[in-house]
């Protein structure tokens, strides 16, 4: 069991404790090593809150989260950063690349923070750059390349630490359909090589690449479907059907 989420609850309280908003009511699930899991849900369903908790950027009100057997809820503030660097890789919707660094340096950033030697950084980068087809843009800056290229650089940054788990937050959200397809192919490829991925998304297309899709509604895991031997197109159909059922049971999805 690589990731285990048990009875996680998150309540936001306003400063004087007068208002309570429940973002997550009771979430429990687990992810096996090597899985590619997509989490779907409407805006306000608690997806982002969940992702922040998994990333140790936020703490749950109650419940526990184990990554690689380590309880990240009770982890000490000082260890969080180094834990995040060594176990988690992030891919964001808006890439989150720093314009002050070249693409190469953006990819090196987590390694530099972990105080790795330049030689080691370079050795890790070479195969990764080849796989992601970014060798030619390494010396350019983020503002000089396209969205699809930016996201590939961001993936390189997430993977260079050899993370136990890659967390992706709407990774296709800012990309056109061609770049989205390319990105999802890359995700499929690294998944096949054994990388565990957890992706939060709106997009049925993106979710159809995953090996398992979980649906979140009203702060809890409502339903999940497995891909099994289905093709991407069949999976797409299955997800659409599920979303329709969910929608008729409540408010329409986006």
């Amino acid at each position, binding site marked *: 069991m690589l990731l285990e989420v048990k009875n996680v609850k998150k309540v936001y309280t306003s400063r004087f404790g007068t208002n309570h908003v429940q973002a997550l009511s009771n979430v429990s699930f687990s992810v096996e090593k090597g899985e590619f899991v997509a989490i779907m849900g409407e805006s306000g369903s608690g997806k982002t809150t969940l992702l922040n908790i998994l990333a140790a950027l936020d703490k749950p009100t109650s419940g526990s989260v184990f990554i690689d057997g380590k309880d990240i809820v009770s982890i000490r503030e000082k260890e969080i950063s180094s834990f*995040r660097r060594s176990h988690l890789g992030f891919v964001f919707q808006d890439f989150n*690349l*720093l314009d*002050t660094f070249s693409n190469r340096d953006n990819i090196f950033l*987590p390694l530099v923070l972990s105080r790795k030697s*330049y030689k080691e950084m370079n050795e890790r980068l070479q195969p990764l750059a080849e796989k992601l087809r970014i060798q030619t843009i390494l010396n350019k800056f983020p503002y000089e390349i396209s969205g699809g290229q930016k996201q590939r650089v961001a993936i390189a940054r997430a993977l260079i630490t050899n993370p136990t788990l890659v967390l992706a937050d709407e990774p296709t959200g800012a990309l056109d359909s061609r770049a989205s397809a390319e990105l999802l192919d890359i995700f499929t490829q690294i998944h096949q090589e054994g990388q565990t991925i957890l992706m939060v998304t709106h997009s049925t297309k993106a979710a159809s690449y995953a090996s398992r899709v979980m649906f979140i509604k009203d702060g809890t895991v409502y339903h999940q479907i497995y891909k099994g031997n289905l093709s991407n197109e069949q999976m797409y159909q299955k997800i659409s059907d599920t979303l329709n059922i969910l929608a008729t049971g409540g408010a329409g999805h986006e």
Partner: protein
Amino acid sequence: MNKLFYAKLALTNIRNNRKTYFPFILASIGTVSMYYIMHFLSVNPGFKRMSGGDALITMLNLGTDIIAIFSFIFLFYTNSFLIKQRKKEFGLFNILGMEKKHIVKVIFIESFMVGIISITLGIVSGMVIARLMFLLLQYILHFTVPLTFHISTESVVKTLILFGVLFFLCFLNNIRQIHLAKPVELLKGGEMGEREPKTRWLLSIIGLGTLGAGYYMAMTTESPLLAFKKFFIAVILVIIGTHAIYTATSIALLKLLRKKKTFYYRTENFINISGMIYRMRQNAAGLANICILSTMVLVTLSTTVSLYIGMEGLLKNRYPKDISVIIQNMDRTEIEAVTNIIHEEAEKESLQLENPVQYRYHSTVFIQKGNRFATPNEQSMITNLSVLWLLPLDEFNSLGKSSVTLDDDEILLHTFRGEEITDHMIIGDQTFTVKENLTSFPNIGEASALAANVYFIVFKDEEIIKSLDDNLAGLSYYYGADVKGDAEKEIAFTKALSKKIRSSYSGTVEGLEESRESFYSLYGGLFFLGIFLGFLFLMATVLIIYYKQISEGFDDKKRFEIMKKVGLSKEEIKKSIKSQVLMVFFLPLATAVVHIGFAFKVITKLLELFNLTDIGLFALCTVGTILAFGVIYAIIYALTAREYYKIVSN
């Protein structure tokens, strides 16, 4: 929509932007009040009665003008900075359906409110503080003047007009900014232009070259007269150098550091170097200006303070005797008659004359080239002029109560200012051997007021001196003495004696007490102006840095958020922020201190022209000024860093 709507909106806007508006209003109040005070002092007629009062009033007028010009540049600059920060806000209004004319209305009300508050509070506080400043100025000048009026209408009107126009121009500039921009651009506002700066090698090298040349000039200037000319060239070179170094050399250097892989890819260096490249691109010109401004403040303050504190010393340098009489072309036989007049006048005021000194000499101007001295002609350069103080041996011996003997071609030499000459001295077509270099001379007197090189030379007799200068009819006579008694009486004595001497001889009389007043009005005025303007410049410096940091805080917020997600800990963020803000803050100050270090020598030479020879005092004043400036600077740094961290970590 009712009329009050816009007023309410304007008020809310100011309140919401208080982090940037409050310091701006405060600075406006400050400048308005300073302008009022300076103008108030300059129109006060009392100071005219002081000897040297005209010079003082000219200085105060100059101060008023400087404040006016500086306020314009400073407030206009900070205002345009404010409006740039707020473009996004106005873009949103625009998109939400407000027309540009409505936005203009809101901006007008805002500018109006800010203007009214600043001008009113500025004048009111100016009126209160002006009286204090009046007392302070009197104290500094050692001169009591009755306060002829408490509020100057002229000052109020001028302040109103000047700042009214200024705020109106700011308003016009604000609308221009809004009108020029499209809504989308307004929304994007500050997020433009984050590209990496190019390395400009040529400019980098020019920067190093000009700075080096400026430093070299400042360090190698020996003659005070040359110092004056060279100082300005050096200042200009250093200003160019500072700008080039901040804008080009710094970036070139940082990029070189980035190329050193093993150095660059260490956590602290990695974040700081890339951060600094980006910061220097945005701020280089501003930081260079702050550096130059700080240098000016420090130089102005340290020199005026040391001139003021060293006043007694420099008075003593300039006037070694309380009273001194100089009469041109006077024969030995007339000495008794003159001393009789002096004693008579002293007795009238019942003053005692002590330690009298008298000798006959000739002072004349030559063109110096090494140890050669030639009679000047019309083409002579003023910078090569030297003044020779020529004394016959008998006068020298009776003056110092010594019994030296000299041959015809032998001389005694005292170098008061200039290159020391040790072996031979060629004057006209005659060569003299220096028998002895005197380390001191019994009476320097008037020579200290001269800016040129000055040599005191003792010859065997009067005949030799006459042979050196064809135009010489006879030697001049000097009489000096200490006066014991009341200062008021001493002044009366000086005036009366001067009248008497002038009526029958061609000569001059100088008294220390009489000159003290004009010295105080000159140096005291400079001192007051130095403090006043120093304060104004400091306020400007601080505000500009504060705004720079705050606006950067918003940009940096996103960068640090990303780094946090990638795995930078809170402590590391704090540390990195601290070192970068520290760099940006103290780089200009550190450079300013280095500039002053190199300028120190040439400034001491310049101060020599003002008769200030106490280098220790000047060093102390310089260090003191830097420390005081540094403390204020550090306080502002602490406040700014706190605000900055709040923005970034929020």
